[in-house]
């Protein structure tokens, strides 16, 4: 499936230039097979997200324990609430002792803190970041804004309820929640994961079409793949 955006880019650059390294060429893969690559094409997985069925018995319990005790948080401050993250990573509150740490890239994270309001422009990036995170992944929503619009309930540029666009595991009340409340939120999330209820990523996979329809309703400039990781 070649999307219109890719096509347009290709057209645009073809006329201007096509450096040798940008031309379509064949390369040999590590297993020896020959595959064709197009450097100008975005390579992403075109499959829909999959549900991950839990393993059986103690294996799953052990995995859940491991997941719960190493929450790696994506360092993406989407709104005001991100101002309370630095106190968490600094000595006073020190969230490392709870197994929580910040990571700079979605590929290394499994917790996404939506720290407050999301403008439409950020929502687009947040979705992309979320989809790039490896499963199992969890979302913590901070503050009023993610629940019902909060302060910006009547703003034309911020969403009102996050659960229409992304699956949320834990909500924390406050505007903005204090670091202690955030730690309590991590605690709750750990409980959920350990009891096997941190299933929101699977819910996203199950209701993928519904989420995508909601997202596309407000993100008019949808120049990104439907799902990528």
């Amino acid at each position, binding site marked *: 499936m070649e999307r219109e955006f890719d096509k347009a880019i290709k057209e645009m650059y073809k006329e201007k*230039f096509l450096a040798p390294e940008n031309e379509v060429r064949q390369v040999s893969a590590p297993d020896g097979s020959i595959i064709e690559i197009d450097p100008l094409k975005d390579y992403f997985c075109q499959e829909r997200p999959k549900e991950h069925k839990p393993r059986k018995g103690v294996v799953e319990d052990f995995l859940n324990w491991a997941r719960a005790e190493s929450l790696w948080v994506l360092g993406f401050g989407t709104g005001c609430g991100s*101002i309370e993250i630095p106190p968490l990573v600094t000595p006073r509150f020190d969230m490392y002792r709870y197994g929580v740490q910040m990571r700079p890239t979605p590929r290394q994270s499994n917790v996404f803190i939506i720290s407050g309001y999301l*403008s439409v422009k*950020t929502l687009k990036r947040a979705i992309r970041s979320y989809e790039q995170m490896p499963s199992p992944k969890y979302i913590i929503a901070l503050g009023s804004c993610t629940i019902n619009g909060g302060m910006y309930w009547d703003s*034309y540029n*911020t969403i009102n309820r996050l659960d229409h666009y992304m699956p949320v595991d834990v909500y924390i009340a406050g505007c903005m929640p204090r670091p202690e409340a955030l730690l309590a939120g991590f605690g709750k999330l750990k409980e959920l994961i350990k009891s096997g209820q941190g299933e929101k990523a699977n819910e996203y996979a199950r209701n993928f079409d519904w989420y995508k329809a909601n997202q596309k309703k407000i993100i008019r400039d949808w120049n990104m793949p439907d799902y990528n990781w």
Partner: protein
Amino acid sequence: MDLTKMFQFNADRSSYPELDANGKPIIDLSSHKYLKLWQGPQHPGVTGNMSLELTVNGDEIVESITHVGYLHRGFEKLMERRKFIQCFPTCIRMCVAEPDPNEYILSACIEELGGIEVPETAQWLRTLALEMARLQVLLRGVPGQAGTFSLGLGYQWGNYIRDLILDRFEELTGGRVYHMYILPGGVRGLLPDGFKKRMEENLKLVDEFLVNINDLMYNNIVFKQRAVGLAVIPVEWIDKYGVYGPSARAAGIMRDVRKTHPYLKYGELDFEPFTTTASDVYARSLVRWHDLKMTVDLIRQIMAKMPDKGDIKAPTPNVMHWRIPKGETYVKCESSRGEYGMYMVTDGSDMPRRVNLKGPSYTQATALLERLLINANIADTAAIMVSLATCPPEIER
């Protein structure tokens, strides 16, 4: 073995793009020498939620375009449909790190247009809140500059003390980050018992911090190597690009609203903002260090001079239907980043006609940053942004 050669990039750096008459680089992407690179919005090296579209040649930036709007909430629109008192909780959320100047300029605009005289005690408390806000933001901002060069230790120190200041804010105002303390007509509470004593204890920690950070940062060979001479703002750019506050003072130009247009009780306080002329990242950082030092001194002065008791709020018309006659004004104050102003137009109704907030980042993070990043190294973008104390919400609001 020649280390320098080993780590040299192979890109063709022989010809940098020429600048056109407007100072913009002429870039021909088809020449294969350039690469588009996005820094942000999800990037640990940007201040807040914005992004830079960098065109790089090797590791050298030849063009930068600032993209904002990720934090746009339409405050100015929202306030047009809120009553004056309702604007107050809304408005302060424009800048997250330092909300108090928002509170003050909104209140000052409403008071000026509505003809309200603020009681003496409230003015002192406002001054105190504003200086405490500056203190807490600089405690993050000063070591944050070293953080951009991967020196995170000072940041850890500063954040701890900042948290103590937030505890004082919590005692005084009831809020940790969003204080919602300065409201049209006055403030929302006197100093609690024992506040001055606890504050003084915290200030002693700041004193100690100032010494330690001086050793850690300003006398650090790595920091000096990277910051000195980086992103120099020539004096003639000050007005041309719109440079305010500490960044202007680092270029030797005295820009401090507290001194030039004393508001609240600043006229009764004894202080002299620090200026220097080097105008590079190091100089700007040094100005902030001196600002922090001065703020500590100012808080001590305020606490010594302020009255303990008195009216905290002037009587206002019933806030449920407070109408302000037609008029317009502009009120400015000095935030930690520079001149912070609000333009308000009223039309005789109970809601403002138009509110426009002008923060220094509006020009510094767009026109100036785009210019400063030209010929800078990719690795230095974060440092340059932090040195300008970029705050995206005040660009897009």
